[in-house]
């Protein structure tokens, strides 16, 4: 069935009303760089395209009082990495935002949209998990918040109930002596879907010698991106060293349960999970030292 209707509600409430009225036939989009293609290739059947870019709250990106960052679900990646302050305080966000698709995609695609598409290999989700982001969801029964590591429930599936949509991503303020980094592996140097990706956020002791805490996430190695708790625990209280980092990398490899497909094999992805977690931890530690 071709798209029957395009609506562009101006407020969150209007959007909720539209979704309530059209039910499963309606689908929200911001940049649309995933959804428009899925509809054209008949991988998703959508009757009503609901454009949320006209709702001010969803296209706003602003620091919160406590130094955190509230990113509207429709804010395009390009606006994030062009904001010098966001780039300075959240380099890990920029690692992800600056490589989703090409420049043309980043002008439109939003982190919110990348999250709601819920691909296991999404390049924004490990970063959001590592940074401890919470998702603000609006629906007919009001608003609720979900930690991002619980957002995805399966390949292309998430916790959004009928009539609900993502309003904003709340990124906590980075603590002192903290640093975070994201990296993906792709066969080319651009334009590919990740064979494997990983993000790490660390908080070091004042002298930078030991890990106070760490959040480590990996993607494309399970039905959803994974917060690898065991890897974080492997570092808590440990000295910053190749050995401790290696133990976290091994925990990440152990947690990975990848498939073999045209983009990569199980053995390759498990190997890369360890390689990438090692790299992002080293990068995060370096950034923490510089913070």
């Amino acid at each position, binding site marked *: 069935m071709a798209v029957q209707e395009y609506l562009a509600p101006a407020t969150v409430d209007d959007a909720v009303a539209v979704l309530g009225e059209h039910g499963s036939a309606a689908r929200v989009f911001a940049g649309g760089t995933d959804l428009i293609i899925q509809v054209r290739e008949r991988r998703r059947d959508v009757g009503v395209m609901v454009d949320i870019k006209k709702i001010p709250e969803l296209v706003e990106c602003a620091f919160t009082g406590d130094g955190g960052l509230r990113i509207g679900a429709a804010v395009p990646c390009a606006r994030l990495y062009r904001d010098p302050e966001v780039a300075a305080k959240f380099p890990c966000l920029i690692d992800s935002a600056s490589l989703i698709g090409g420049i043309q995609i980043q002008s439109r695609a939003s982190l919110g949209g990348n999250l709601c598409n819920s691909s296991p290999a999404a390049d924004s989700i490990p970063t959001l998990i590592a940074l401890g982001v919470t998702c603000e969801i609006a629906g007919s029964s009001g608003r609720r918040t979900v930690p991002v590591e619980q957002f995805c429930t399966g390949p292309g599936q998430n916790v959004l109930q009928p009539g609900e949509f993502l309003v904003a991503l709340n990124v906590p303020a980075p603590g002192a002596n903290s640093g975070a980094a994201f990296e993906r592996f792709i066969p080319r140097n651009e334009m590919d879907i990740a064979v494997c990706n990983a993000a790490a956020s660390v908080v070091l002791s004042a002298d930078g010698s030991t890990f106070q805490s760490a959040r480590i996430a990996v993607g494309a190695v399970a039905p959803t991106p994974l917060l690898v708790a065991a890897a974080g625990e492997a570092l808590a209280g440990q000295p910053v060293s190749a050995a401790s980092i290696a133990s976290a990398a091994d925990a990440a490899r152990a947690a990975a349960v990848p498939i073999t497909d*045209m983009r990569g094999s199980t*053995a*390759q992805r498990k*190997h890369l999970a360890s390689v990438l977690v090692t790299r992002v931890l080293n990068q995060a530690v370096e950034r923490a030292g510089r913070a």
Partner: protein
Amino acid sequence: MVMADKPKYRVIGTRPLRPDAIDKVTGRAQYGADTRQNGMLRGYVLRSPHAHANIKSIDVSKALAHPGVKAVVTAADFLAPGQDLAQLPDLTANVMAGSKTLYHGHAVAAVAAIDDESARDAAGLIEVEYDVLPPVLDVREAMLPGAPILHEAMRTRTPEGPSADPSNVVAHAVVVFGDPETAMGECDVVVEGDFSTRMVHQGYIEPQAATAMWNPDGQVTIWTAHQGSFPARQSTATILNHPISKIRVVLTEIGGGFGGKIAVYLEPVAAMLSKKTGHPVKLQMDRVDVFEGTGPTPGTSIRAKLGATKDGKLKAYMADMAYENGAYAGTAANYATMVATACYDIEHVRLDGYDVVVNKPRTQDYRAPSSPAAAFAMEQLVDQLAEKLNMDPEKLRLQNSSREGTRGSMGMPFARIGHEEIVQAALDSDHYNSPLEGPNRGRGTASGYWFNVGLRSSVNVTVQPDGTVALAVGSTDLSGTRTSLAMQLAETIGVEFDDVKSLEVDTDSVGYNDVTAGSRVTFGTGMATYEAGKNLIAAMKERLAATWNVPEDEIQFEEGKFSSPDGSKSGTFKEIAQLVVGRGPGLTVSGSVNAGFLQGGGFAHHIVDVEVDPDTGKVQVLRYTAVQDVGTAVHPAYVEGQLQGGAVQGIGWALNEEYFYDDSGRMLNSSFLDYRMPTTLDVPMIDTILVEVPNPLHPFGVRGVGEPPIVPPLAAIANAVAHATGVRQYQLPMSPRRILQTTGKIEE
């Protein structure tokens, strides 16, 4: 630019600006999909979801009932009188499946409707009853007895005559020189390998598109982006059972072809839909159709052995070469027997070429078809031999290089060729003499050959009253040949390049031209242009004789000037043209040639530096130099462009491009997302060294340059990776996953 005994030219060798580029940089250029005709309907082709199935029935009634639909076409519409669906010739059956679908994506029916959406929806209402059969997808498996048979009537053509039983092996070609078995036994050093490459696509950015109008009087006009208007007319006529005199093919601009737009896919279907509706009909492939429904290049399995004496004399080469033909019979392996040993003077050779059908799209040419895979084997064996002999591989190549008189393709002796000169140029190059430092890095080199062809071309030249000339060309211009031909005409008749306008004309406006392929246009159509130039000067002299009252054969023409015997009267071409044409009747001459089959051979030699990330297996190309014997570089910038474009296609083929099939024969990566062609970030600047060893067969020494540059990269990169990692690569693509496997980092 390394010169070798080259005459001084006035226009040839300069870098004029391409007039046709202005429409391309402003977006005004019209390609296949840009065609607009009044009352035009849009078509959609329904394609088979099964790689191997009998078609039991096709019910189009629901599709015809769709409000927007005007007509539906199936293979039944292309039957000749008294012919049944099982007897459709391959040419037709590949355009629309008759009794069997032989690959996933094989066209089964087509719909013409008022718009795309209606055509596509209606195609979904066509009910096809399939009897699904097991597919065979691997070239070696397809050769085994007991493999599912694609064509019951197919018998293998062998030197001893046809095989007794049905087979998927189209032909077994055998080429033997000397006594290879004995000679191999006598060699001091022998190296061998079992090489395989995957099916890859030409990757042109413009999907195929064609529009047709079938007039009530049977006159058919076709607008298409195709590599040869005349061969397209002939194929379409055969498929339609319609005379070529009633078919006119008009070329639009073409968005790349590389051999993939030699076959016809949409032209006959659009024509038949137009015949049924009385409207012009446009058919346009999308990217999935291009990957799954056109003609990629064969995947290959090559088992080869190379023997030499201890002082580095190559003595014997034996190769068993199996090439995927896809659904219908092809000649890829036959080509391979023409190129496999061309770069070297090897006395004892045995080549067994197997053309094999498999349940994949019917393969088509892709820039020096068969040669890259053949070089992937030979050039790695040469590299390994050099290692064993403790020699510089370049010295080993130079020592054994083919030269004038060496036995070339099909036993024909080479005329003047430049393989020695380009290997020497590589040895002298800055790249080869710059040290490559750092871990996990390696440098590789490789040679490559393509025989290049001449074939038939014809052009018309019209003198305008103002003394300028218009060159009408019938050869598709893939990469700037309108300019290289105009330059050759300007050189021949002694005028400025800006005084020559060249344009593509349709099949009713110029003599027969073979397909634009075989790197032949600047060479073959160039010769026709030179002929036309000569004929034009003769025609001008004839008119001038009357005007000057001087015998025709006493009028001189040098350096672009006519002069009477005593020099009292003279004038430039332009001045004389304004006289004898400006005031006289119009003047058009033509030039036609049969430029022969073999052009004399084009040789390429590449150097590449790579770095291999040991943790991820990713190969990054650091530096690349393409050296090539280009005969005479008519327009050096466009020749450089051929070397750069061919090299990067080779880099993609070597590193990340492949057709990924599931067990049912469905391609999983039929999009530019997962069919990974190189982007701007995957390659460095491609340095070029043009070596000019003039080709004696052409008046200006021109040699075909389009195809050789894609041949060396596969092997050059494989050699570089081997030197960086110490591990030889026998399979393409050398993807990060393959490198991790072969270097033992992961167990698969």
